[in-house]
């Protein structure tokens, strides 16, 4: 980059990130057919999940007191926050490979933020079809669920989305950081990314008390999904339930610390 570095650090970083994104987008547009197929494939990946929820509710009509529309509200919020996090954090997801191949050395040599460079390596824009689908389902669920919407309830939905995005990004960051110590991605950590996206389609209390406890105190997923949902559905009146996603966002702090610790311990794999 030979742009003059007169502007503040923040806007420079943003400009660099946008530059990265434009490169990725342009290169993807070289393979339009493949882009189209992958977008459609990622649409089907979540659409089939939607269909199975639909078939289950046609048969059972409700689960633990939740109606179809209420579950869809939950499902669309989780799907949207996960897909948005996945689109942006795709670079973190493939980071273990970068460490294994020794490519991270090159990243460290450049005088720019490490995370910025890693996030800028990839952008899974093909997954926008999932976000689109989540928007459609969310709109349907919002209108058909029979909830009496107040400004705070609308805000709660936004908090859930933002909190979910933050939480998933944090988990992706942990996944990436672990590869410093294990030189490889740990497959079981997918439980907390794909697993939470997949099983988070239902409010997590249907899985029983144990799961709810883990998802409250270990990985605070219930703070962005279950508790605020209770407030939105009018099952709980306490206003603090609406603000719990902010508590979940604090999860990002230990994730970032682990990442920093990993960077400090990094030894090149040498290849």
């Amino acid at each position, binding site marked *: 980059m030979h742009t003059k570095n007169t502007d503040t650090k923040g806007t420079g970083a943003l400009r660099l990130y946008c530059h990265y994104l434009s490169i990725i987008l342009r290169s993807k547009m070289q393979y339009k057919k493949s882009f189209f197929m992958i977008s459609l494939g990622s649409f089907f990946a979540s659409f089939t999940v939607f269909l*199975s929820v639909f078939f289950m509710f046609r048969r059972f009509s*409700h689960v633990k007191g939740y109606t179809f529309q209420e579950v869809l509200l939950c499902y669309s919020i989780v799907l949207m926050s996960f897909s948005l996090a996945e689109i942006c954090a795709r670079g973190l997801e493939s980071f273990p490979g970068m460490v294994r191949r020794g490519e991270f050395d090159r990243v460290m040599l450049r005088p720019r933020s490490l995370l910025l460079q890693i996030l800028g390596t990839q952008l899974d824009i093909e997954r926008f079809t999932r976000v689109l689908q989540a928007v459609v389902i969310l709109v349907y669920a919002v209108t058909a669920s029979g909830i009496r919407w107040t400004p705070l309830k609308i805000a709660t939905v936004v908090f859930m989305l933002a909190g979910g995005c933050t939480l998933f990004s944090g988990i992706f960051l942990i996944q990436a950081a672990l590869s410093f110590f294990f030189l490889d991605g740990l497959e079981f950590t997918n439980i907390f990314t794909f697993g939470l996206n997949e099983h988070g389609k239902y409010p997590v209390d249907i899985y029983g008390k144990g799961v709810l406890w883990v998802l409250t105190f270990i990985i605070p997923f219930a703070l962005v999904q279950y508790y605020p949902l209770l407030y939105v559905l009018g099952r709980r009146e306490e206003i603090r339930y609406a603000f719990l996603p902010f508590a979940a966002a604090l999860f990002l702090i230990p994730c970032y610390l682990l990442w920093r610790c990993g960077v400090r311990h990094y030894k090149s794999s040498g290849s």
Partner: protein
Amino acid sequence: MKKYISYFRMWLVMGLQYRAAAFGGIVTQFFWGFMEIAAMHAFHESNPAAYPMTMEATCSYIWFQQAFIAMLSARLFDGQILDSVRSGDIAYELCRPVGIYDMWFSRSTASRLSAAGLRCIPILLVAVFLPKSYRLSAPAGLPQFFFFLLTLALAVLVAVSFIMLIYISGLYTVSSDGLRRLCSSLMDFLTGAYIPLPFFPGTIRRMLELLPFASMQNVPLRVYSGDLAGAAMYRALLLQIFWLAAMVMIGKILCRNAERKLMIQGG
């Protein structure tokens, strides 16, 4: 035939080396199975009358599905085979006095068996000792167990013969990437990986049961618990044989056709 058996053995032993990957897989599959059964319990409690299977049959269905996922999944591809088509390395394979189809077939079957062999025993062992509502129960009877093994073997072969068609499509289009991505989740859905086929609405279910995807998981997993028995089971078994024969035949014809006019683009 002997050379394909040694290919089979080679890839079997090779696959058994990846123990760490298998351990990660076991933990993930176990968690997945547990969450799925928990959700099924929730639906069962909400409306027991609408539940189409027994709870024990659901548990054994889900545990076997998780234990054998590497063996039965319609979307697990051998990256090296795909790469060899893309990179042109397939030229080396073509120089050898072996048939591409038979070699890939034995290789895919072997790597599936070894991947599942490493994963299934710990999962099934733990599943047997779980509390009653989550437990993997004993088979419905000795004959059912025999038919379970038979349909399971056929299911692996049907899955491989289908995967072969995807590999072969790569010979025609260079990269089968797009097609693969497009189909993979759809195939998962149709095999009954998201919800078992009995949970689908009537007409859709009857249609799906005729497709080759039903032969890949649905049949053996339901035979074990006696959920699929009698005349329906024999019909399913014949359908498995039919799909296996049909897809192997189509695969072989397409493969021979492609081999004849294959172009290696350098590499």
